[in-house]
């Protein structure tokens, strides 16, 4: 049962991810759709950040917000993503230690 489930899940996650790439540029799209598509990354980013960031530490949503704010400030200064990431980890661990677990 579990192995059947894993095989089925493998199929239904693989096919939608691959079809557009197999069709590639043979797929001709009108200009308005291309314009719409160009915003997908930003819309995806927004919906992935929020509200998920509130649940980093379940009982204290503000810790995720503080870490995110810190990451945003650092990202304004540097183009390398690793500094905001390390700072956010430090803030999250630090704030948990400071306020008790």
């Amino acid at each position, binding site marked *: 049962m579990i192995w059947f489930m894993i095989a*089925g899940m493998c199929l239904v996650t693989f096919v939608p991810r691959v079809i557009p790439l197999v069709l590639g540029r043979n797929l001709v799209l009108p200009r308005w759709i291309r314009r719409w598509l160009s915003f997908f990354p930003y819309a995806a*980013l927004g919906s992935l950040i929020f509200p998920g960031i509130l649940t980093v530490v379940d009982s204290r949503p503000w810790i995720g917000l503080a870490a995110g704010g810190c990451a945003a400030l650092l990202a304004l200064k540097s183009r390398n993503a690793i500094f905001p990431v390390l700072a956010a*980890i430090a803030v999250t661990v630090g704030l948990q230690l400071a306020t008790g677990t």
Partner: protein
Amino acid sequence: MRGVRAGLPVAVGYVPMAMAFGVLATQTGLSFFQAGAMSLFVYAGASQFASLGLLAGGASALAIVLATLVLNFRHFLMSIVLSRRLPLRHGRDHAAKAAPFVLGFGITDETFVVASLEDLLSIRFFLGLIVTVYLAWLSGTLIGAGFSSLIPAIIARGMGVALYAMFIAILIPGVKKSWVNGLVAVAGGLLAWGASAALPALPSGWRIVIAILAASALGAVIGSGDETAAEREEAA
């Protein structure tokens, strides 16, 4: 390799999530190999967690497979965007034929946003990115399934924030380029939030689909936003 380096922040975020999956999977009754096979072959975080919840609730394999299809429809949208950005060759050789299948398997929410915001996306960059991230997901799962709760919760949560910090770090340069990009991102977040509040039963994958479609439509109506992406498409 630049793709590997771009994948490192994602990898840092994936390890604790994958470990949590490994721990939960063994608690739900999957064997070490079944948990590993999930990450090896299915490789879809949200769906993997959802399947455990459904299994615990006594759902059938068919119901779980259908739920997975629904949850992962967003990757179809993401793959459409990447199919227009990745310089795939139309060769008769094995490498050209296998490329869409290998690269497509590597599409996740995280690899999509990192790759789609790369100015000149190359196959090498994407391959480096997805291999790094995939290995992190797989090894995290095996560690979690093999040695439950080896890492203290406080550190795991600290690492869990990495994905969000990375999303923010790649969002900021886009917002600097055009305020419309920022507006679309804020609209996406609010829509996802609103959808989860209004329809709590809606699977998280569909929240993201709704947010992507609606917020991007808003951006397309208001302004040109990422002009460089549009120009690249014109040139191609």
